[in-house]
């Protein structure tokens, strides 16, 4: 599904990613953990195609196709989805209209007709129920005045609507209380199947109690320094990152 090979990336001339390798197969959930400033969010942005970051070496492949030179929207059309750590507020565009535009533009790019209105409504209803989203919420301006939890829930709602092959959840757990966390995690789990994959980027182990990863990777100073199963996350929770830092320097 996703293959990252020796990825190096800069922002404003400063190297943030220093040779990342990652192989995510269909049906898998990977967690990427690491302390602040280790490059987690940069990795997410680079995969989604944020032009603020420059890939200097290596490549990002989705189903064998290189993404490096593709615009963010082209990556989205191929099935990449990024749940933002800080979703942007867009006053004047309702959640519903935003989703309609996103879905129909994606369909247009694939040479498909626009989704019929009744089908769209049905899908919106179904997916908003999955994430326990109130109907009134759908006619509000996108993310404007949303609480942290509402924003994150809205991100996963968009994921449900867009049905990506690869979803990257960037700190989706931050700003969520335990109930919202359960709803969001339940949503992700219900959307998960053998043909798609999820990369969960998180600081804490908490979310991984609910979205259980097949693999856990530790990102430190722009490199993956340790990989393991879900038990690695528990170990990190218990012992922090210092032992890994020491291990890495040794």
């Amino acid at each position, binding site marked *: 599904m996703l293959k990252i090979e020796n990825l190096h990336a800069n922002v404003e001339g400063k190297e943030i990613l220093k040779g990342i390798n990652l192989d995510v197969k269909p049906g898998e959930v990977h967690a990427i953990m690491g302390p602040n400033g280790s490059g987690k969010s940069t990795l997410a942005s680079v995969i989604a195609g944020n032009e603020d970051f420059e890939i200097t070496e290596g490549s990002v492949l989705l189903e064998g196709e290189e993404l490096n030179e593709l615009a963010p929207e082209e990556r989205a059309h191929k099935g990449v989805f990024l749940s933002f750590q800080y979703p942007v507020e867009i006053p004047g565009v309702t959640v519903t209209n935003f989703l309609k535009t996103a879905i129909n*533009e994606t369909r247009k790019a694939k040479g498909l007709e626009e989704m019929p209105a009744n089908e769209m409504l049905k899908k919106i209803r179904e997916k908003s129920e999955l994430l326990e989203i109130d109907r009134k919420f759908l006619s509000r301006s996108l993310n404007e005045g949303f609480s942290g939890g509402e924003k994150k829930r809205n991100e996963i709602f968009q994921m449900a609507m867009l049905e990506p092959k690869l979803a990257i959840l960037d700190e989706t757990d931050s700003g969520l209380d335990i109930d919202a966390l359960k709803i969001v995690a339940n949503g992700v789990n219900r959307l998960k199947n053998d043909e798609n994959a999820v990369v969960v980027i998180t600081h804490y182990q908490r979310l991984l109690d609910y979205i259980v990863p097949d693999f856990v990777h530790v990102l430190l100073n722009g490199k993956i320094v340790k990989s393991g199963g879900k038990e690695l996350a528990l170990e990190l929770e218990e012992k922090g990152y210092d032992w890994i830092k020491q291990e890495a320097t040794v």
Partner: protein
Amino acid sequence: MELKDKLVSSFMAFEDTVDVNLPVHEVRSKAIKDFENLGFPSKKLESWKYTSLSKLLKSDYSVFPKNESSLEFKEVKKYFIHEIDSYKIVFIDGIYSSHLSETSHEGLDVCLMSAALSKPKYKIIIDNYFNKIAKTDGLTALNTAFSREGAFINIPRGKVVEKPIQILHFSTGNESSLLLQPRNLIVVGENAHVQIIERHQSLTDNPVLTNSVTEIFANKRAIVDYYKIQNDRQSASLIDNTFISQQQNSHALVHTFSLGGNVTRNNLQFFHKGEYLDSTLKGVTIIGDKQHVDHSTLVHHATPNCESHQDYKGIYADRSTGVFNGQIIVEKEAQKTNGFQQNNNILIDDTATINAKPQLEIFADDVKCSHGCTIGQLDDEAMFYLKSRGIPEKEARALLMYAFANNVLESVKIPEVKQRINKLIAMKLGVNLGFDL
């Protein structure tokens, strides 16, 4: 001959076509003298610093069209808000078209300035209202001197007019270049409500310059809701002078949608004559292709406890120029004034220019006045967010521009007008988003 001299000398010919014995003719005679003294405004005037008329004044305009032209409704249907039942006052090359119009004298007057100026039954109204708030600058004086035709709307006390009134000016291009000077008078009685839509439309590429003057009087508790749709050809320029006088507890709202034309200047002025009234001025400007739009607004707070709200959004691309000159005067007597002004601009590329100048002159000490002015580009972060959801660059930009202009559209009360503006904006941005915001 210079246009100014040509106009002054054609005044005599004009006098042959109107009844010079009417009292209004004294007003005209004085006005032509004022125009002779003042002339056209130049960039030396502070209020015209950013808008030059000099190029426009070089055309050899016909002052009076030689031939009467006619148009079939189907040729111009798209310029009407035709989805709604409405009164219509339509002019073709400055001459009233009874064929395209739908006027009324039943319980209100929706008719012609020429009738109002000449018929005895309107004498009192003309005496009381005609040329009472129009400023005596050169352009307004010029219009007053040649005032003969336009819309006359008189809504009696308590009348809630259900149908909107559309005022349309077409120019056919049958003259190689044409100067139009419509003169409108709108008197809205106590507790009366009216909605008006105004549009100027040139049908060919022959140059047209319109110097329009509209006086609006909102009496006690009246509601006036006015929409100006400006989406003309590159060959057409418009100087719109609109003056609004408000009595206590009245509400006056003017929305100006400036989406096209060569040079467009909107002089929009509100004068407060009573307490507890409010004035709303909203504008959306989206231009490119060397177009020029100037919004010069004035709200004159002269009485206590009144409110004014100004909100202008502008999107400028491709060598276009915008001007926002927003003046708020709060006189010493006008305590407890609440004056709000907002002007936000987006420059799409570095060939576009905006000159923004908020001007607050406050002489009272117990007032709330605020103004905000921003000039920026589209937000990169928001663009990335939209693109990451599969929305391509062009559509993402359009979506953000829609969103930017949207809060001005929110206050449009006629759904069909809102829909039309949405459509015009979508066309302007070259996208079809498949929904109305």
